[in-house]
């Protein structure tokens, strides 16, 4: 399918974050937890407007640093959601926000 012209593409923001926890956290658990937290807090309609996405191949499981994408108007909503992440299964977690940028390149390196 033809790629949309740049003026028609959605505007996004990328958030680099680190998960602070006592045990290792897998990407699949983090992804499920973030989506469930967002759905519980904002509902299906609210999350639909956030354009939420957790980038799988950019998750560093050794340092537990990942990148999440959202719509440019939904950054406070995503950051608040990350603040509401308290547990992944039995593991207590806290999310530290490292940087917010309009591009993945702008986030810099881990």
């Amino acid at each position, binding site marked *: 399918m033809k790629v949309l012209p740049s003026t028609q593409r959605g505007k996004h923001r990328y958030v680099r974050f680190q998960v602070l926890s006592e045990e290792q956290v897998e990407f699949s658990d983090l992804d499920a937890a973030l989506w469930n937290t967002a759905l519980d807090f904002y509902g299906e309609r609210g999350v639909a407007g956030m354009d939420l996405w957790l980038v799988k191949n950019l998750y560093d499981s050794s340092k537990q640093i990942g990148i999440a994408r959202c719509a440019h108007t939904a950054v*406070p909503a995503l950051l*608040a959601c*990350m*603040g509401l992440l308290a547990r992944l299964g039995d593991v*207590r977690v806290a999310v530290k*926000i490292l940087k917010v940028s309009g591009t993945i390149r702008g986030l810099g390196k881990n």
Partner: protein
Amino acid sequence: MKFFDMHVHSAFSEGESSVMQLAQRAKELGYAGICFSEYFEGRARLEQLKAETAAAQRATGIEILLGFEARNTQELRRLVELRRMFDVLLAHGGDIAMNRAAVETREVDILTHPEHGRYDGGMNHVMARLAKENGVAIELNFREILTSNKKTRSRVLENMRDNVALARKYKAPIIVCSGAVSHAELRDPLSMTSMAQLLGMTPVEAKTALSSVPQSIFDKAGKRKDGKWVMPGVEIVK
């Protein structure tokens, strides 16, 4: 911009983590300072707590204040008499009589979660005006949101929104705190300011609630220690 968390419980009161663990996690999350808000249990425990917070401050390099939280009006009166012995006085909100007593008392720095356990925000226009006059900050407690869900969480958020609107109208100071009882409950400053924005604050108001307002409490605590402070509103000028 410097961020401060003014309501953290250690294992000295109802917390699960030690003073050092909390201080280290606060430094890791980027806070410039925190305030331990404990329950007063005698002067011996006070000296022990002061020693531990001083050690944690030396080890981590962040500023640490010692505060006590009054759980009822009787305890509030007692802590007001002992005001010179510690840095920050918090009042455990929720009960209307306690909320009212807290905003009427100039020695109180923070009224914590005035909507706690209530179906309303626990504040009215009279209390908001008194909070402004007496410099009592109204707290938005993140833990109240974190530990509730579904209908309870909706009610908590609604009540907090009402308090934000009242405080804005009457220009009472608002402060955002984690209310953490363990190091795992401390939250990133950006997450807390974002939640404050979802409760109706502007981005500038939200950042002020986590930086300038607690900074002013730190400054007041500093003045209280330097010997020039006599009582609220009275200072020795040489």
